[in-house]
């Protein structure tokens, strides 16, 4: 899952980016409203974490501009403004959730998971495909009951594929949702990660779950149809 953090207070932005990366999210971060808007308009983020008081373009304005142009990216507002009117204004401007500073980082993670479940139309934090279980809370995968050791990137790829179970996921899409701005596109990093993931998930099991569609992308699912 790929996130955008728009927060102008440097220590908070850096800590957020660090903590979210530790939680296997691909994270882009900026402290400037104008830049934030540009990022949001040009990348398919899963969730945008948005501060309201920003230099350049204010958070509410970013939100309104995004919604006005039909951008449906989920937005979680992070702000020090806790008055009911402020929350109402934020939610009415198109925010999907509202978290008042200072917040518990664990709560932020839980809300992110909830938003992502909503985005991929799930209710269970555990995604089950045949005998594969992807636990989005513990960020862990099991196949036939035994835990599979995954690197952060491999887990990120698996979680995205699991969220899109049964759908063909293109390389670009994977690239957009599992890698941040700093990753170098065009390299064969993605192929390497996918092949490792496939080895860990499918090796030793009769039923293969990760399938390649030549020229289109990958599918995670029971049937290779």
């Amino acid at each position, binding site marked *: 899952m790929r996130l955008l953090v728009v927060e102008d207070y440097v220590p908070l932005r850096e800590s957020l980016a660090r903590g979210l990366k530790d939680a296997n999210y691909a994270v882009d971060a900026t402290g400037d409203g104008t830049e934030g808007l540009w990022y949001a308009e040009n990348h398919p983020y899963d969730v945008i974490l948005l501060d309201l008081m920003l*230099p350049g373009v204010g958070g509410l304005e970013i939100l309104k501009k995004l919604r006005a142009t039909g951008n449906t990216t989920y937005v979680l507002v992070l702000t*020090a403004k806790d008055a009911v009117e402020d929350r109402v204004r934020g939610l009415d401007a198109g925010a999907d959730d509202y978290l008042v500073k*200072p917040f518990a980082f664990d709560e932020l993670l839980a809300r992110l998971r909830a938003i992502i479940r909503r985005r991929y139309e799930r209710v269970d934090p555990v995604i089950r495909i045949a005998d594969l279980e992807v636990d989005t809370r513990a960020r862990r995968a099991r196949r036939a009951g035994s835990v599979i050791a995954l690197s952060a990137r491999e887990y990120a790829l698996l979680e995205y594929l699991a969220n899109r179970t049964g759908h063909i996921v293109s390389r670009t899409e994977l690239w957009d949702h599992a890698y941040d701005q700093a990753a170098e596109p065009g390299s064969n990093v993605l192929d390497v990660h996918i092949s490792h993931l496939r080895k860990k998930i499918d090796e030793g099991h009769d039923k293969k779950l990760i399938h390649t569609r030549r020229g289109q992308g990958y599918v995670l699912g029971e049937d290779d149809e």
Partner: protein
Amino acid sequence: MNSLRARLTVALVGVVAGVLVALALALYVGVQDAAWQQKDHGLQARAHALAAGAENEDEGVEIELPALPDGFAEVWVADKVISRSAGWNGDLPARAGRFDLTLPDGRPGRAFGLHFAPRDEQHRPPVDTLIVLAEGTDDIAATVATVRTRFLLLGGIALLLVGGVTAWLLARGLAPLAALRRDLANIDAGRLATRLPVDGQPSELAAPVRTLNDLLARLESAFSREREFTSDVSHELRTPLAGLRTLLEVSRKAPTPTDIEQALAITLQMCALVENLLMLARVDAGQLAVAKEPVALRTLVEECWRPHAEVAAKKQVALRNELPDVTVTTDREKLRVVVGNLLSNAAEYTEAGGWIAISKPAGALIEVADSGPPIPPDALPKIFERMWRADTARSATGVHCGIGLSLARSLADALGMQLVAATHADGSVHFVVSTAST
């Protein structure tokens, strides 16, 4: 007695009672006079009538005195009683004219005496005859007593009516006051937007109601400023707190020395903010004792600069300390906060590669100038307002508390100094502290 209603009622009843008593006295005297006059006229008329019936005959004067129901009559000719009304044997005074007397039966009475010459068919020389007619005056006393009783009764009723009606009318007239009191009782800090109705108020109340509304408006704006300030302060505190909390939570598993340094920096920032807020609260409450001590300006500025040196160095902002070695007499700690906030402001806002200059211009105590960006002229009066942020272009640093300059100015005031800001033609920003006398 502190009730307006009771006071007005009593006053009005008193006035009406006074008027009634005066009226009663006048009427009493009038009635009495009229009764006496009537009595006199009656006596006089009857005396003349009786006299008209007298006749001088050969045997002497002949007069017929009928029995008088409530009176006595006596006739004299040459000091000799010739006739008395029937039924008694006493004597009346032989006097002409009107006079009071005690009747032979002991009652108070009124009498009228008339000298006359009885008719004489033979036309003999006239005989001087005196008739005196007396009547009791009990009827006058009774009439006056009746009048008095009725007047007391009616007067009492009138007073009761006046009192009752006045109290009722006053209660009705003062009803808007009671309504006003209810309206006012409903206003609390959360409902200061309420205004009292002016239309339909009696003119005596309209003016105070308008004054009350003005007061409400002033209170409302004061409260809303206070609320804004509180909300700004909470924002200023929440942001670094959020940074600190997230930093600590995220780095809990594997903290690095950098994390601790950063946490410390945030904490120091918040300490400074809280210090400033406390000081501002004390200035507001007027609880500030101002010391007088010798302060070496140059040393003070060097001390104040130390916390900002690193930030400035990172931005490659150069400091020019052009202060001469002078000593001034003032409160060191407060001047330190003033200068500290000016330097903090300069260090924070001066664009990378710029300069900050500290000098002592003629007629001023200290000047802190920086190379800009310039503060637009229309923003200059606002920068000393609490929580005013030099717009976005000047505050990309995240946490900047908008009370530094406000506090600096308040403290300068408390020290008897003036703090003003100006943008020069070259775009440089100048803050000048001068002693108020210069």
